[in-house]
């Protein structure tokens, strides 16, 4: 195991549409359950408001952007402030544009269907994750 | 895994660990949940449901778990005495006693 390799998973902030909410939850799932030892989450607005930590990390380590919609905020913000992202996962591609563009969701109103969407997205992120890992292991 | 030495003396010569007062403890497990060093161990099937399993993992001078205990059921040794002891051990070690 490449014990030391960490991957940054950057979610969009997700305040404008359901896709964003799912993106956030899938990212948290990576950190909480799927790859807790290797996932580092990055707070998007900290690129502007924070210190060096987030920008430097995203420069030095591989990153996966998880975006709710085609606006691709997480990808664009990371590229603007830091460096290239290794992969982008669009929630809208996975759950469909129509659903993804619905209103942002409070976790208070999370249903089993939503949870299933989170699962699906997390599965795609995991696949990307492991691919990046395998490429980076010598 | 825990530090083998503290302030230059072997950790196992330092008496620093929580003692559970079973008269007071109600097994709320707040201290267990809190301590990241695995000092405590839960014993689900035992009438004594919580023990101090790894006293040497306890960070010397840390009493943070006791602050989670509303019942004051965790006691620690006296800091001044422990420091004195560490200093003695240290001078002993240094002079190659």
């Amino acid at each position, binding site marked *: 195991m490449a014990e030391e390799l*960490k991957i940054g998973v950057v979610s969009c902030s997700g305040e404008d549409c359901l896709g964003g909410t799912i993106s956030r939850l899938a990212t948290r799932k990576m950190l909480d359950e799927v790859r*807790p*030892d290797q996932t*580092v989450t990055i707070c998007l607005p900290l690129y502007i408001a924070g210190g060096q930590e987030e920008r430097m990390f995203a420069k030095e380590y591989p990153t996966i952007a998880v975006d709710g919609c085609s606006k691709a905020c997480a990808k664009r913000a990371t590229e603007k402030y830091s460096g290239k992202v290794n992969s982008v996962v669009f929630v809208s591609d996975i759950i469909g544009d129509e659903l993804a563009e619905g209103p942002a969701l409070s976790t208070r109103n999370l249903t089993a269907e939503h949870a299933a969407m989170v699962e699906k997205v997390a599965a795609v992120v995991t696949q990307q994750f492991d691919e990046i890992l395998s490429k980076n292991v010598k | 895994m825990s530090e083998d030495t503290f302030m230059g003396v072997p950790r196992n010569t330092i008496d620093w660990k929580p003692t559970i007062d079973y008269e007071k403890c109600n097994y709320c497990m707040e201290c267990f949940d809190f301590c*990241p060093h695995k000092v405590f161990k839960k014993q689900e099937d035992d009438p004594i449901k919580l023990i101090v399993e790894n006293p040497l993992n306890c960070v010397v001078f840390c009493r*943070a778990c006791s602050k989670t205990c509303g019942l*004051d059921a965790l*006691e620690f040794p006296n800091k001044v005495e422990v420091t004195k002891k560490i200093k003695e051990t240290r001078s002993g070690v240094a002079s190659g006693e």
Partner: protein
Amino acid sequence: MSEKYAVLPCNGLDKCAGQVAREIAQIVCENTENELICPVFYRVSDARYDKIAKENPLLVIDGCATRCASKLAGEKGLKIFRKMTVTEEAQKRGAPLAVAPLRLGAAELALGAELAAELVKEEAADASVDSGVVYPVPEEYIIHKKDKFIFRVPPEGFYFTENDCWVQPVGNRARIGITDFMQQSLSDIMFVTPPTVGATIDQFDEAGTLESGKAVFELVSPVSGKITAVNTPVLNAPELINENPYEQGWIAEIELTNFAEEQEFLLDAAGYLKVLKKKADEYHAGKKQG
């Protein structure tokens, strides 16, 4: 300063420590201009005490670690200026109240009187004087990186304990505080209980506590001496400690008594860096255990 305090005890009737808290509050109020707040009445009615509580620095006296009085202050949106917890003080004096009877005996009354006297004395000495000592600000920091975390250690002028506390001596005075690593481990600090000005402490004694959403941390004083000042701005703005725990986030100033000898038991930057690296690795390994 002739300002008076508002005194809020827990008044716990079911424990000896609570009875002592009540006793202390009464003695303190008898010997000062301070105003007593009855926690029971305050709980049911804001009107009687709100003005007193909001316009004066608040002294909270809790019996035990359940901290009912602190919690009440929290509910009422009050800032705590000074806090005392009887069981902790009893412990420090090696006279835990564990087995003490509910009714106060001579020993408990004596403890109450002693603690009350301490508070009264402290209040009199409160206007903690600026010592005028200039503490040099580190020009740069040694950086240890771990994933996205960056831990800073000042390269010189500071000494450290293995408990992640530091001391910066200048002449016979020194400032004490917590390290960047501890600041980040605690995350956002919400409450600071400073050590008592005028108190004499031993090396590695407790010198105040810091509380975040994650934990309560005891500052382990790297040196012995007499507390000469506390950094009052951090009491109301604990984020100053998170921003820079070595500069504006210092906790207290102490008059050194035996630094030459105590220094032997402290780490320099290089020594602490080693401890820090190990802790950073362990902290990350430990995270998954939740």
